[in-house]
């Protein structure tokens, strides 16, 4: 099986040549970056058309990243949920998440473009660790920008990145979190664009990033589609995923876009609840605007100033979302809903107890949302539905949060 899942279909025609899905996407960037984005778009197109590049990427995913990841039928969980649940086990990839696919693809592309240096932004450190991993593997210099608040919250991941040879730069501007780390990475890129590739961590940003990242992660859905056909003899009734910037979700959805009967559900972080305003649900709780280079949905106030997001899950704690999801939301092809911290943590516990799998809290949002839509699906179909749930990552990184949430830590450990 091809792990990278290249190949075109009708959905693969989007975005258009200027990076737009309808009115979403595009390039809202300083002119100084346009030449670099053009160079990247050309390199991406050429790489995708090059059998040699695709074969090398496939081999890296197979031999190094442990892909294709299994599609695992979770029998006890299925009982509890009332659906046939197939878990797409991205948590079993090297570095423990779907993100390894994106970083390997981009690092390979950077090398092909002759850029010896990569920079990355990171929130909790997951993408930073993945980027540092790919940089070590492909012998590239790596600088990771991380909000100063996050470097303190995630000291262990800072150590991991440094262990892998990366330089971690704490960002002390703005809200000192992920969005400010992206701003700082963009500033670095404007300044050092000759020798540097910006290894963006999700399917967002200016063209060609959303399409390029999608192409590197779409193997998730390509594999799951084939695995589901083999295991069940049919396509799933639904595919679900959590949505932060949107990479694991677009990776899971993309191969199914033309399969009209397959419903696609994206679950955003509802934080403390939509009514509280403390959430990270840009599609369900935001408005259309421009942030980090693309027109999309984002959390903003009446003046168009970005509003800070809130989620128990660092990977979903981002006030915007990739433009392809904005398009799928606006056209209704995918259904997006918000899942609260509490719902996600309940699903996190359920998966741990029924299957012996401690997943990332991000991924627990996908499971919690799935549990909410299963009764609707069952009613609409008149039978027990089959659902592919994208388990985007493993939960080792989240044990302090979970331990605190469930009161599992001794006083002195908290």
């Amino acid at each position, binding site marked *: 099986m091809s792990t990278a899942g290249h190949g075109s279909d009708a959905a693969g025609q989007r975005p258009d040549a*200027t990076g737009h899905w309808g009115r979403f996407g*595009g*390039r*809202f*960037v*300083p*002119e*100084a970056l*346009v*030449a*670099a984005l053009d160079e990247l778009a050309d390199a991406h197109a050429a790489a995708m058309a090059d059998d040699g590049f695709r074969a090398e990427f496939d081999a890296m995913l197979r031999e190094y990243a442990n892909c294709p990841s299994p599609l695992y039928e979770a029998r006890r969980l299925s009982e509890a949920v009332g659906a046939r649940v197939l878990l797409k086990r991205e948590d079993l990839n090297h570095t423990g998440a779907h993100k390894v696919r994106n970083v390997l693809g981009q690092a390979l592309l950077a090398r092909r473009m002759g850029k010896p240096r990569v920079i990355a932004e990171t929130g909790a450190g997951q993408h930073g660790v993945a980027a540092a991993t790919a940089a070590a593997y492909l012998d590239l210099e790596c600088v990771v920008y991380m909000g100063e608040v996050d470097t303190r919250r995630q000291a262990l991941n800072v150590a991991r990145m440094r262990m892998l040879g990366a330089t971690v730069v704490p960002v002390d*501007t*703005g809200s000192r979190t992920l*969005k*400010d780390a992206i*701003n700082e990475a*963009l*500033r670095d890129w*404007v*300044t050092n*664009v000759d020798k540097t590739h910006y290894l963006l961590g999700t399917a967002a940003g200016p063209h060609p990033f959303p399409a390029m990242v999608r192409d590197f992660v779409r193997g998730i859905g390509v594999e799951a589609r084939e695995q589901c056909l083999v295991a069940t003899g049919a396509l799933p009734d639904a595919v679900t995923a959590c949505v932060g910037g949107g990479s694991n979700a677009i990776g899971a959805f993309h191969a199914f876009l033309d399969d009209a009967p397959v419903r696609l559900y994206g679950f955003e972080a509802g934080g403390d609840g939509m009514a509280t305003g403390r959430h990270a649900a840009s599609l369900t709780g935001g*408005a259309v*605007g*421009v*942030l*980090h*280079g693309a027109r999309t949905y984002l959390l*903003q106030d*009446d*003046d*168009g*100033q*970005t509003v800070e997001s809130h989620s128990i899950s660092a990977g979903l704690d981002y006030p915007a979302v990739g433009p392809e999801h904005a398009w799928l939301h606006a056209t209704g092809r995918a259904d997006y809903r918000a899942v609260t911290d509490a719902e996600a943590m309940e699903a996190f516990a359920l998966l741990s107890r029924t299957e012996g799998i401690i997943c990332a809290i991000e991924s627990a949002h996908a499971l919690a949302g799935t549990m909410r839509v299963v009764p609707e699906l069952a009613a609409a179909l008149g039978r027990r539905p089959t659902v592919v749930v994208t388990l985007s990552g493993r939960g080792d990184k989240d044990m302090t949060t979970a331990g605190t949430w469930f009161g599992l830590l001794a006083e002195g450990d908290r």
Partner: protein
Amino acid sequence: MSVTAAFDRARAEGRAALVAYLPAGYPSVAEGIEAMRAVVAAGADLVEVGLPYSDPVMDGPVIQRATQAALGAGCRTADVLRTVEAVAAAGAPVVVMTYWNPVERYGVDSFARDLAAAGGAGLITPDLIPDEAGEWLAAADTHDLDRIFLVSPSSTDARLAATVARCRGFVYATAVMGVTGAREQTSQAAPELVRRVRATGTTLPVGVGLGVRDRAQAATVAGYADAVIVGSALVDALASGPARLTELTADLAAGIRTPLSPPPASI
């Protein structure tokens, strides 16, 4: 006054124009207005009013800190328009420098209408390239506003020509690859970029910004550009108090009146 009138006046005096950037609302809306009036009095030909924004990717630390402080003090888009109105009344043309989302949120045509009504002359749009600017191009025509896009040393000749063709008022040449902020030296790439802009055949004035911090640098840039754009250095000066701001502006104004001859074309 229009941007063109200000450039014509400078040209008639045989000198480059001095363009001064300050953010609205810094340190407060009222003090920001005072500061902008002070730079006009001290010799600035044109004022760029910065609209403070939460995610200023083109700005270096000095302007970031100032705009963040302005937002923290409660500066809103309405205060920016109020600032434009108060400064335009002081007799220099005023353009607004803004990231795109606040304009889009306000409504592109509504923003253009209200900016024109406040006496504003146009917009500088650091993260809006002409490729994405359809709505703004139309609104600028409707409300007779100047539109100042940025060009960069990395822009291809084809892009330079296309961008310059959509500019009105002047062309903003970013002299260095990088963010705003005072540097020790102005860029060697700047004269070449100005030459390339002029080679498109445009008659628009070309302003050079990013990196000018003192009289000597202003004199250097005035040797080859139609306008010297100064931001971070003025914001720094304002942080030290109104007296320092006036002093620096007067220095810069003296600099543009004593231009150094253009550097050799080879660099």
